[in-house]
Structure formats: C-alpha cells, structure tokens
C-alpha cells in the first residue's frame, strides 16, 4: 500500500484502470489464475504448493510433536507455531535480505491465529504443530495465498480441523473496488483489505485493512471476497482430491 496522496506529490501514480479493465486485463471482481497441488514434500507431515498469478508458494506442516522448549507447552492443547518467509530471490526487484523481517513476523502471527481457530488443538495437549510458508516468488497477495496453501497442507497432514480456510484480498483504486491485488495494484491502490474466511460459517479469521474505505465499501468488499471464496474453496478441494482420484482412475 503506497498511499495515494503521497504518490500524487511525485506526480507518478500509474493509472490502474484503463477502459474499465485492470492493467493485466482483469475485470474488477476477477481473481488471477490459481493452481494448487497438494502434497509433494516427502519429509513433512503435510505440504502443498500454489501458483496464484505470479506468486509461487510452498507450505509444509510438521507435527503434532512434543512442544519444545518445554515452557512453550500448553497442558490443555497444542500450540501452533508459524513461520512465513520470503526467499531473497522472490521479487522482481533487488536481492532480499534473508531471515524474517518485521513484516514477515507479523504475517506469521496473523497466519498462526487463523489456524488456531480451526485446528482441533484439544486433541494434542503439550504438543506443537509447525506451519511453514515459503514464498519462492512474490507478486502481491502472498499472505492470502500462503494461508490458502497452508490450509491444504494441513488437510494433507491429517491434523483434524473444523474448517478449511481460504484468504484473498480486496482493494480500492479510484472509485472501484478490485479483487485480488497484484504487486503493482498493491503499491498504488487507495486501500487493501486481506481477509481469511472459514467457509463453513463464513467466519472472518483474518482481517487487515490499510487505506481508506467507507463502511459500505468494506461490506461490499466482504461479499466480493466470499464470492471469490467459492472458487478458491473449490480449487482447494480439487487439489486435495486429485492425488486420490488419479489412483482410483488407474484401476477403473
């Protein structure tokens, strides 16, 4: 999020909407193409890979296992540990620093909180579940794509959950609400609102917002997200079913 006013001063804001279409030709409520593959990493308890537009993200799950160091244990339920990180070669710009920065630490935290809601943690007191999200290539919306991927990775691990969350963001440029911002849109839009939803009850599990939106826009944004969520949920389910169905098809 750049903040439009600030950019005005430089006189350098690119026009994000041309002839009623976005720069990459999408309609306002259109997501980028999404491809999800469940599994793939042998050592992890669960894993998944996503290509969401130009984002390429791996997620893996380890555990549940004994929480260490011991003082991190909760005698009532499993603790979730989450690390979101971006590869130093992930952006089109310069080489990044390795190791999590303040942004990555915050994203790790809000991602963890999404899954604290849905994982049935009471089944595994004293244990920990580790969720790793590695952004190999980034083009805006990596936290949402990371959460969507981690949900699939968790499902492949057999860790019980009450829901299969997805996430996507909605933003605003000029008077238009736009779904699923890419990097360029994210940099120059007037608002950005990433949201994670538990589709079973449409419960809001992650909500962040930055910029300027009216109440009406927030609510309209939420319905755009839920509509997109039907597609994302469908892709998550297909990805989870695919490895099993391909083996079943072999013996039809």
């Amino acid at each position, binding site marked *: 999020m750049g903040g439009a006013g600030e950019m005005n001063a430089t006189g350098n804001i690119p026009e994000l909407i041309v002839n009623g279409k976005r720069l990459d030709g999408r309609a306002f409520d259109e997501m980028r193409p999404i491809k999800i593959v469940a599994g793939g990493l042998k050592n992890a308890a*669960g894993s998944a890979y996503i290509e969401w537009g130009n984002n390429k993200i791996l997620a893996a799950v380890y*555990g*549940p*296992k*004994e929480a260490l160091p011991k003082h991190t244990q909760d*005698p009532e339920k*499993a603790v979730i540990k989450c690390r979101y990180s971006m590869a130093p070669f992930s952006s089109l710009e310069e080489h990044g620093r390795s190791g999590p920065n303040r942004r990555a630490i915050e994203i790790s935290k809000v991602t963890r909180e999404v899954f604290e809601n*849905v994982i*049935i943690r009471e*089944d*595994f*007191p*004293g*244990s920990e579940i580790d969720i790793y999200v590695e952004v190999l290539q980034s083009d805006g919306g990596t936290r949402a794509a990371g959460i969507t991927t981690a949900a699939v990775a*968790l*499902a*492949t*691990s*057999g*860790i*019980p*959950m*009450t*829901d*299969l969350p997805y996430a996507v963001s909605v933003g605003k440029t000029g008077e238009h609400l736009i779904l699923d911002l890419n990097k360029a849109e994210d940099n120059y839009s007037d608002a950005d609102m990433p949201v994670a939803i*538990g*589709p*079973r009850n449409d419960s809001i599990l992650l909500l962040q917002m930055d910029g300027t939106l009216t109440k009406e826009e927030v609510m309209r944004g939420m319905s755009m997200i839920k509509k997109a969520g039907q597609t994302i949920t469908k892709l*998550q*389910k297909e990805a*989870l*079913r695919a490895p*099993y*169905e391909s*083996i*079943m098809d*072999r*013996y039809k």
Partner: protein
Amino acid sequence: MSRIVVPGELLADKPIRMEAGFIEGNNTYSTLLGIYHEEKGVLVPLEGLWYPQRGDIVIGIVEEARLNAYNIELNSPYKGIIIAKFVETRLQRGDVIEAEVKEIDETKTVVLMRPKKLFGGKIFDVKPSKIPRIIGKQNTMVDQIRNGTKSVIMVGMNGRVWLKGGNVALATEAVLKIVEEAHTTGLTERIKALLGPQSQPQQGV
C-alpha cells in the same frame, strides 16, 4: 454413495455421531480429508493421525532408559512409557520394541505393557490412517505379505512397520503399494499378483 470430503465439509444435515466427524447445531461435519459413506454414516480417513486406544499394538523406540521407567518414542505427539519393573530384560536407548497399550493416563501419556524387543530388521513410518488396510480384514493382507515374502512383519497402529528376513525389498514394495492405494477397491487382488502364488494360504495343511 461415497465421496471424498475435506475438513469442515457438511456430511449430514442431522447430528450423527461418527469418528472424525463433529456435530454443530443440527449438522454433522468432517474434521479430515476422508471418504464419507453416506448410507453407512461412516467417515474413513484418507489422512489421519493415531489416537491411542487400549489394546493397540504399537512399535516404539526406546528414547530414554531410566531407573524405573522407559520413555518410548511412538511417531506421535503422545509419549509412551513402560514401567521398568514389568520388563524382564533391561532395555536400552535405541532399542525397537513392539508393545500393547495398557492405558492412556490423564496427561495423555500412553502406558505400554508386554514389550517385545525387535532385533535388527528394517523399520519405517507410514501414515497411521493406512494401517488398517495394511493389516486387512482378519489380518488377510498382512498374512498375504508374510506368505509371499517369508518376511517377519510387525505392524504398529501408531503408523510403523517392521520387517525382517525373507524378501524385505518385496515386502516393502507391497506395504508402500497398499499405502498408496489404500482407498481403492481390488487392492487385495493386486497385492496377490505382486507377491506371486506363495502369498495364498496353503490348502489342507
């Protein structure tokens, strides 16, 4: 009708008690990736963890040999323990054992009994949700592997397989094929074909 379901997916618009399902309001939902058999109201996990139950046979590794008890690693968040005075021979760190779950105490520690030490052999972990299929109805599948490979095979409910002697490579191949194809029909026949004619119980002996 049966279908593949994911965590949070609606199974029934009425409350049905079932393993790996949960009830909220008047609905029943899945907690796992599994196959839901609607008529039977049964959810068979495709991916699932091991929840220890009394009587389960497990394969563990001695992690720590203390004076009065052994800590046993069970490929699980649940820790295993064996009270030393119930064991005839002293166990050592790194020993592989087969044992039976005696009880699960209030701290979710799995108390084991009747440990048998497994010497040498090959050990590997598989997803616990695949274990029932490796064993088969009335042990049919595991017996088939035994007969077809002449290997000694032990299967732990905690998602662990131990093999020794005979054709270990073939036995491993059979187990991994069962793991991959656990959710398909006609698997027994395909494993039979893989193992060859010796895998069938001999008639009249």
